[in-house]
């Protein structure tokens, strides 16, 4: 399972990288979102998959899956939500202000 998920992560990273290299900002944001998905998946894989029960203490289960990565991912998800929403708003504002979503038109000048 771990290998399969790792390969999936690899695929997601590839897709994300490809999108990140676009000149359209929306694609870039999607790329970043996919990259964060991929890394969350990877993080949980690193703790080992399905090696025990749900990490909620009960009487029936002897071993639990690694709970620490889950806590980290939860934090990471929230942070990526914060970042993504800010970035979306920025993208929207930028379009409103300069009328483009093309990075090529956002190069700025060298002032000379």
């Amino acid at each position, binding site marked *: 399972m771990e290998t399969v998920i790792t390969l999936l992560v690899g695929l997601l990273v590839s897709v994300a990288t490809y999108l990140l290299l676009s000149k359209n900002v929306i694609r870039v944001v999607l790329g970043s979102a996919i990259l964060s998905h991929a890394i969350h998946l990877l993080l949980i894989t690193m703790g080992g998959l399905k090696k025990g029960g749900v990490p*909620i203490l009960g009487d029936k289960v002897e071993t639990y899956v690694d709970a620490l990565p889950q806590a980290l991912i*939860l934090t990471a998800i*929230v942070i990526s939500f*914060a970042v993504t*929403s800010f970035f*979306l*708003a920025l993208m*929207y504002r930028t379009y409103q202000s300069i009328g483009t979503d093309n990075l090529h038109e956002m190069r700025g000048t060298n002032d000379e």
Partner: protein
Amino acid sequence: MRENDLILQTVSKVAVFIILTFGVYLFLSGHHNPGGGFIGGLTLSSAFVLLYLAFDVESVNAGIPLNYKMVAAIGVLIAIFTGMGSLLFGRAFLSQSSAYFNLPVFGKTGFATVTLFESGIALGVVGVVITIMISISEDV
């Protein structure tokens, strides 16, 4: 935004209550079951998101006249000050503790600072998510 989505609006009203209840449940059950401050808060705010989608911003705001930035700020402050509470008892920052009380109605009730901490978190999350939503949708 949309005036004629009567069905959506009706469904939403019901759904919002369900979601709200579920959110509160999630928040409270977090200590022993899946859930907690974050998830509860997020769920609660998704209820509001739904409201905003179904109704327009102005009417929701008229119904719930809150400055969500301040809600978020208060949430953060609650979380921090809960953490600092332990300083008063000479404990390390963010030391949580719990105590049990015998309350008339609820019987033996556990009260943990964690709960307070998490309520700060939840409040913060709700405030932030709604602030974001309102800011963007108002502008649009």
